């Protein structure tokens, strides 16, 4: 088995809610509430979940854009959790991020050349090499050198996302965290960007953490998939395993909601009742018990352990064995 590029141990991210006057009790939004996983070199790990489940926060914590409240992040064997901004800066060229919104993630006042060149300047690459590298990167992502002197507003969403990818690639990172890189794009463009990401992975031996809410996108690109619900991982396994035999009831519900492009197929949809509970006051025990069709008393009291039921198949559910069969 290949080595682990990234290990995440029980990270938590709590955001304090504004305290009310005179009230001493501090309350927190538990955006990420103790998740652990490992990412192997060269693989694509997807993190899926509905809006507000903490998947983007997880990405930002891994990028060290947010400081984890608790837990440990180990990158290539080095613990990077406690490092200050100055200490982490030189390491940043090892992991880069592609953002969700290609319209907001590029500075409208800079030309494409300046945008792509920026990481090179930040990491002290020679001026002479920079110009060549920019042209090279533009071509790698399917643009050309004539685009270098234009401004982001002159590009379509798909082209902008290509620019964002070129920027992330500039310093030859090992890990790219892609935070919903295609969800802001037209469906027709999505597949182009996904194929580009796949090609780049092969070419440069990249490792991806792919954050998404669209399961069909995830199915296309991932090696392994982690499903998140309310700040916790509920299931983590290989893609084929997850799509074939999901064990957690939440995963089952998610998969049953994926549209099937065949009107004659009668689908057996699992409709979840209710809304996602507030992460400020998550339900006791298993956080999913309020919406779980199989919930029992035990689920309300006891937090299920995130355990390896089969090889490479982790689930956080008390009744995974029974539900699986």
């Amino acid at each position, binding site marked *: 088995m290949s080595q682990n590029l990234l290990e995440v141990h029980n990270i938590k991210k709590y955001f304090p809610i504004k305290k009310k006057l005179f009230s001493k009790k501090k309350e927190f939004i538990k955006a990420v509430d103790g998740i652990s996983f490992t990412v192997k070199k060269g693989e694509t790990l997807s993190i899926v979940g509905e809006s507000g489940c903490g998947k983007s926060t997880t990405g930002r914590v891994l990028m060290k854009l947010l400081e984890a409240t608790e837990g440990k992040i180990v990158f290539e064997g080095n613990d990077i959790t406690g490092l200050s901004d100055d200490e982490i800066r030189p390491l940043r060229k090892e992991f*880069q991020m592609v953002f969700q919104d290609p319209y907001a*993630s590029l500075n409208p006042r800079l030309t494409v050349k300046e945008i792509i060149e920026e990481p090179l300047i930040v990491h002290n690459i020679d001026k002479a090499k920079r110009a060549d590298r920019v042209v090279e990167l533009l071509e790698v992502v399917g643009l050309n050198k004539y685009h270098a002197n234009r401004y982001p507003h002159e590009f379509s969403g798909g*082209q902008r996302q290509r620019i964002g990818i070129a920027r992330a690639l500039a310093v030859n990172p090992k890990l790219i965290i892609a935070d919903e890189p295609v969800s802001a794009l037209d469906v027709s463009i999505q597949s182009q960007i996904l194929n580009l990401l796949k090609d780049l992975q092969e070419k440069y031996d990249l490792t991806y953490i792919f954050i998404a809410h669209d399961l069909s996108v995830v199915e296309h690109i991932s090696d392994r998939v982690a499903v998140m619900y309310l700040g916790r991982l509920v299931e983590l396994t290989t893609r084929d395993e997850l799509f074939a035999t999901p064990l957690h009831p939440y995963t089952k519900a998610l998969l049953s909601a994926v549209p099937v492009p065949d009107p004659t197929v009668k689908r057996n949809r699992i409709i979840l009742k209710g809304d996602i509970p507030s992460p400020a006051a998550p339900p006791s025990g298993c956080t999913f018990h309020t919406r779980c069709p199989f919930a029992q008393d035990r689920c309300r009291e006891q937090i299920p352990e995130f355990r390896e039921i089969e090889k490479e198949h982790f689930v956080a559910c008390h009744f995974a064995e029974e539900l699986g069969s």
Partner: protein
Amino acid sequence: MVELKLTKKEAYMQQSMENIKSNTPFSEFWRKFKKQKLAFVSFFFILFLIALAIVGPFIVPYDIAEPDYNNVLTGPTAEHWAGTDAYGRDIFSRIVAGTQISLYVGLTSVFLGALGGTFFGLIAGYYGKKVDAIIMRGCDVLLAFPGILLAIGIIAILGPGLGNVIIAVAIFSVPVFARIVRSSTLAVKSTLYVEATKSIGAVPRRIIWKHIFPGTLSSIIVYFTMRIGSAILTAASLSFLGLGAQPPSPEWGAMLSGGRDYLNIAPHVTIFPGLAIFITVLAFNLLGDGLRDALDPKIKD
């Protein structure tokens, strides 16, 4: 090599883009600005004033300091377009010569104020927390004084004179700019592209200078222009009160003050310098308004 798959549309765009000249943000701004008729006129008027400030003292028809006791307090005539003052000096020549002083005071004081205010605003907005609290409470204290009173106070400490007027106006411009810049900084700081730059590993100085400062520049320019008007007004007021430029300097406020005693018999002595102040301040304000409309990204045509 990675397979490049471009749609027909993208390929077409690529082709056409090679030929079309790029729209820089400046050309975009200029196109919008030209539509603001009043501001556009004001802009050229101000350019004219600046030209006048440079060459004015050399082209005026009369000596601005030489008294002429044969023509005291005469009204506007063909020889003296704006009449003469109590010493027989040509008022039109003095106004033209005074342009230099007013513009110099207005521009330098606001420039110094903007420089300080922008610095504090960027620091306060970017670092937040304690730094922000200390800087902004300091600004609140300064803003609690009425502007002219603060200026009088500062001049009381430093002593009267044009140089000190500049310092006084600059000091009370600092908190105004600090506030404006801080609020734009907060807005720009929360954008995704600043976060993206952070994730690249850029140092704060680079983020502030390359990404946040350009984002605040449009509001700085607008306020800069607007503040020049009020700085000229304040400088004139201080001179009128005898705290700024001293006679016989042809400063417009000092000229107003000099004409005050003859308001009944020779109103032109005050009217013309007053008009000069009025039109100049108005031009700067209109230009500021126009710039705001042209620079505001929310107003799309």
